[in-house]
């Protein structure tokens, strides 16, 4: 149970129970993307309002496991009010944290995702929201798949 807590940190459990920015169609959304993890059936819809290079609003909706829901929720919290460049820096930082022993400097609360790295089968759950963000910022029309 002890090392399981390194994966399911209190912050992750909390964001899974009460996901932030969990709604559809924020006002005047002008970027959106859909993410899908066919292995576990996770679906994620992400919508953003980007004005003058700043993410003014963001919302997500969908169904997923605790890791994917918490990662999406934490992401929306951390990118709201940030510039697109800052959000992309966070995307790269989280990606390194999850896949390459990244130190996670400057990631703040997102550091809690580091525990996922010890669970290779769950890394895709944590990255789904971030890949979807990347697609939304590029405004690529095609759905993102982890596979």
């Amino acid at each position, binding site marked *: *149970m002890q*090392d*399981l807590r390194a994966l*399911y940190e209190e912050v992750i*459990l909390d964001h899974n129970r009460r996901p932030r920015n969990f709604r559809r169609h924020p006002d005047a959304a002008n970027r959106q993307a859909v993410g899908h993890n066919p*292995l*576990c*059936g996770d679906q994620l819809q992400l919508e953003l309002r980007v004005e003058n290079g700043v993410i003014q609003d963001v919302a997500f909706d969908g169904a997923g496991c*605790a890791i994917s829901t918490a990662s999406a929720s934490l992401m929306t919290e951390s990118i709201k009010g940030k510039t697109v460049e800052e959000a992309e820096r966070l995307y790269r930082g989280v990606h390194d944290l999850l896949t390459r022993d990244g130190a996670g400097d400057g990631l703040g609360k997102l550091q809690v995702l580091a525990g996922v790295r010890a669970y290779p089968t769950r890394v895709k759950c944590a990255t789904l929201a971030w890949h979807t963000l990347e697609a939304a910022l590029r405004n690529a029309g095609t759905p993102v798949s982890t596979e």
Partner: protein
Amino acid sequence: MSRAADETLPARAAPARPFDPARVRADFPTLAQTVHGKPLVYLDSAATTQKPAVVIDAIARYYRCDNSNVHRAVHALGERATQSYEGARAKVRAFVNAASEREIVFVRGATEGINLVASTWGRANVRAGDEILITAMEHHSNIVPWQRLCEQTGARLKVAPITAAGELELEELEALIGERTRLVALAHCSNALGTINPVARIIERAHAAGAVVLLDGAQAAPHLALDVRALDCDFYVFSGHKLYGPTGIGVLYGKEALLDAMPPYQGGGDMIRTVTFERTTYNDLPYKFEAGTPHIAGAVGLGAAIDYVSGLGLEAIAAHERSLLEYGTALLREVPGLTLVGTAREKAAILSFTLASVHPHDIGTVLDHEGVAVRAGHHCAMPLMQRYGLPATARASIGLYNTREDIETLAQGLMRARELFG
């Protein structure tokens, strides 16, 4: 060196001793380990079963002592390899009670067996406007080959619905069998729900309408005593690795007249009688369908697995699993927030479920930390998950080596998951 003694054992030997799960468990080397510091509780046998030492040893012995190519060599090793390979076929014939070894085709697994029938029987017999009937509970391997056949021929794929409990809507299924129905393909036992389908009745109705029937026996073969002649099915497929045998080997049973009339599957060595650049004539059954060097060691391992389960007795295994299914069903029903998915009256020992506020993937990870291996996901049956409006379920599937303690550890792990996420 003479042939291994176990090859001469009858495939349906009477159980020598009463079924003792603790003793049986000791036959499986993989089960004697800890995972995350806890004794392994393996409840993923519907994905693949663990292998008894006799199977592992039979494969090693084949490679250490007999390894050679089959059917053509005149030397001693070639002779022994051929005898081992064909000996395994004889065991399979007895295991499914086929009329002849000519009706037993070795394939890679149930999936390849279905693909073989779809691409040879299918292309020779299915025309535009014809219908192929499957059910809503099929594994992707019994959907996609027929979908492809329909795309290629202009035939239509029909799907028989199921009830909320996971049983076939028999009247609706029978209403879907018509004069255009060329084939009915269905699971003998569902991998995601555990439902055992009333196949004898369906086969009778399909035959009355002139349709042939393929049964996907991947999940049934490890749990039920098989008799293809009593069932009167036209094709039956199963995989060795779900029957305590190795991966990469499986069986297609087909009625001889049907197999005989079918064009070959793959072209190559062993499947021919004569080859000139102008014309090739094909080998007899079953070799017509076994192009190239087969998985000889796999067949030897499958033969050993059949000896093993036959030695324990399919009836004794089924009774043991049935009692664990009843025990597990009762125990899981006591877990607050747990919903069983698949509650058919006739069921094999598969427990698919969801847990309120805990995603199946998280259930899988929490249980893994308790040493309990279950599966979480769509179980290669996405349309079935859609039928229930679920992205995924968790699935505990029981094998002959499981015990009541295993089920109790599962239930305790589920309580932990609830605590953590509650």
